[in-house]
């Protein structure tokens, strides 16, 4: 009961409300067309990747880090898979596995670099991003690689009952697993502890370094999945893949209520936020708006909503005794 009340006051709840209203509005605006199987399929089809990149960012935010390399890691993995299958005839499952591992390794590398060099994660991922962009270009140059088995593409475009795209379901499964991992497993809790209050975590025998590494690796792994879904669902992969991931990856968790200082796990919030952003796309198509207007509106809305949300929570702030140390936004955990 009490916890129910608590939930009612959460960001998730607000987002849910906004999302529902928005959706109903769109349905009406499209004279119900939006409810057609095809329209719904398209709507969900392009939710899969945004959800995943949002989560990939959320995980690192949870330990008070940032990952600027989301797009680079994803794009690099996708292109690697494409090249393996198209140019070297590597069988699909193997190629996908390799791609996934590459992405995870990239994440692991980020984590290790942050921990070993003690350089701020912001800068480290900035550097790895540059490197990976280079590698991605080296892999595919300017071509669009698409000569990979039809089977993969049909997986990417298959939809259960013609409504629920497989790739969307995959994304949801990943989200679910992540939620369980963060809420119910020891490493997950330790990860959040490190993010919430590194000093306390250390005094309680939790290795913050380990948490940081785990977070970055997880982020990489999730991006690996995102890359797989991308290559499966897009007409091909080229150097532009991942180019537009960075801002959405931050938008989703932040709108979802993640704290940049770490310690917050907002899987549901991130997913809901991704939905809302997606609705904006749909609206754009529906009313054939200029993209500029969309950005303008998104910016204004995000600013507005976040501001309103914050004013509420800030009242609480000063009265609480137990606080995370005011770590810098992008401050690394040490």
């Amino acid at each position, binding site marked *: 009961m*009490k*916890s129910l009340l608590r939930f009612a006051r959460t960001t998730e709840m607000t987002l849910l409300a906004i999302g529902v209203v928005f959706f109903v509005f769109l349905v009406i605006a499209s004279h119900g067309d939006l409810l057609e199987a095809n329209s719904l399929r398209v709507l969900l089809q392009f939710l899969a990747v945004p959800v995943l990149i949002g989560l990939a960012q959320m995980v690192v935010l949870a330990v008070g880090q940032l990952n600027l390399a989301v797009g680079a890691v994803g794009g690099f993995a996708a292109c690697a898979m494409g090249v393996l299958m198209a140019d070297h005839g590597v069988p699909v499952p193997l190629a996908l596995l390799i791609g996934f591992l590459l992405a995870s390794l990239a994440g692991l590398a980020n984590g290790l670099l942050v921990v070993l060099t003690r350089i701020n994660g912001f800068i480290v991922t900035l550097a790895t991003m540059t490197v990976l962009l280079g590698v991605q270009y080296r892999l595919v140059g300017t071509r669009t690689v698409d000569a990979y088995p039809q089977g993969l593409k049909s997986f990417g475009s298959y939809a259960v009952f013609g409504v629920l795209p497989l790739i969307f379901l995959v994304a949801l499964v990943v989200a679910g697993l992540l939620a*369980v991992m963060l*809420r*119910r*497993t*020891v490493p997950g*809790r330790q990860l*959040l*502890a490190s993010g*919430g*209050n590194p*000093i*306390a*975590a*250390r*005094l*309680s*025998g*939790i*290795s913050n370094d380990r948490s940081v590494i785990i977070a970055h690796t997880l982020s990489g792994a999730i991006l690996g999945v995102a890359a797989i879904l991308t290559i499966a669902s897009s007409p091909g992969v080229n150097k532009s893949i991942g180019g537009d991931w960075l801002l959405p990856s931050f938008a989703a968790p932040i709108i979802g209520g993640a704290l940049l200082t770490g*310690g*917050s*796990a907002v899987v549901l919030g991130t997913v809901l936020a991704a939905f809302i952003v997606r609705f904006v796309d749909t609206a754009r198509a529906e009313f054939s708006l200029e993209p500029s207007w969309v950005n303008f509106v998104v910016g204004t809305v995000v600013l507005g909503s976040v501001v309103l949300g914050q004013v509420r929570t800030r009242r*609480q702030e*000063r*009265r*609480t*005794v*137990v*606080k*995370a140390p005011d770590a810098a936004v992008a401050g690394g955990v040490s």
Partner: protein
Amino acid sequence: MTLFEASEVDKLFPGVRALDGVTLKLEAGSVHALLGENGAGKSTLIKVITGLYKPDGGRLLLDGQPVAFGSPHESASAGIGVVHQERNLIPGFTVGENILLQKLPTSRGLVDRGRIRSEASRWLAELDLDLDPDLPVTELSVAQAQLVEIAKALSVESRVLLLDEPTASITPNEAERLFRVVAKLKNDGRSVLFVSHKLEEVFQICDTVTVLRDGSSVLESGALSDLTRDQVVDLMVGRVHEALKLPPRTVPEAAPLLELSGVGTATGHVDVDLSVRPGEIVGLYGLVGAGRSELAKALLGLDRITAGEVRVRGEVVRIRNVRDALKNHKIGYVTENRKEEGVFLEQSVSRNIAVTVWDRLLKRLGWIPGLSYVPRKAESALVADYVEQLGIRIASAEQLAGTLSGGNQQKVSLAKWLAAKTEILIIDEPTVGIDVRTKDAFHTLIWDLAANGLAILLITSDLPEMITLADRVVVMRDHRVRGEVANDHDYDTMSQQVIRLIHAEAPAPA
């Protein structure tokens, strides 16, 4: 028999020899005090024992077996529980999770909420603390938070419990409760290490004592029964320490500088009346969370004042913020929260002291209006002056305040208000975690400031301190003033009166 022993332990930090051949024996079923001035090495020793720091020399023995803990985790699983000096709870987590953080119970790989609830409540019960284990720790008061930390320390089935200044931020009543628990543990045959700067407590609950000075043990496991308070103090200080003698001081008959009548605040205070005259020290006493600090913050405009009026020098004023209070009313506030609000740990001592006086030092840049700068000479002269007069022991005014000991940091935090030439000074918990000698120095200083005509509002949870300094003691509880006692500077009578006031039945709300 000896449960745990640390022998000949050394610990070096860049530039500091924090521990130098320290030996410590913890007997089963006894409470052992670890005393020493600020920076003596108490916390460091505890961190070495729990495996947070790697010792540079010496051995640790548990049940006579040599042990080496690589991490707090290992020491915990070996049955060594610890409450560190630092706050130690994870904001996002529930009370239960925080208590069991070191070894979260799992079933089939997943964290088991049910068992967390049951086990946590068991430990809470042991401290007869009725808290919902599912409560987020962000909703706890300071005292509750402190007790949860102790529950956390117990939760590792600890046979050895290390408490580093557990009573620093709680009042006698919570302390009493804690002592009951300690006594219980003692009877269970466990052994407790107790670090505190409050010697009354130490003599009340401890059996044996080890005293550190500058990182080396000057007394090893002496029986407290055959030691006097003064002997212990002398050991800590390293020379004969005569009890504090304050010169007589009379409060001049004058109109109050600061006067509150019927003040209510957004943070829940209800008609608070209070007045401080120049040259007077008014003590504001109460349990943790009584609302004293909040009252101070409301006075400074950090929280809204919703009712009543505040008069400064007889005039009704509306103070907007600290700046306003300082510039227009000459009011200063020495915060209770030294590390977060008192000093800028990552800035130089010099800037920490000068921060309030830059306005005054400003020099016009040539003829250009509005363009002015802070002349370095004047600044450093002023800083040097205060460093000298407050006896802040530093190598250079440019070193970071974060590298100073608690005592010196507190001096810095006070210096900036003296430098600002304030006439009304609100001092909140000035001597928390500060050793006997420095404490005395502060008492002399505060006393002397009053003698020089400052009006001082002293907030403290340290009853002896209150009784030494205050002219009048105003008692607060639940954000209301519960009464006032004229101070006769006699511990026994005063303490009784004050405690009685605190527990008096609440008057029907006006």
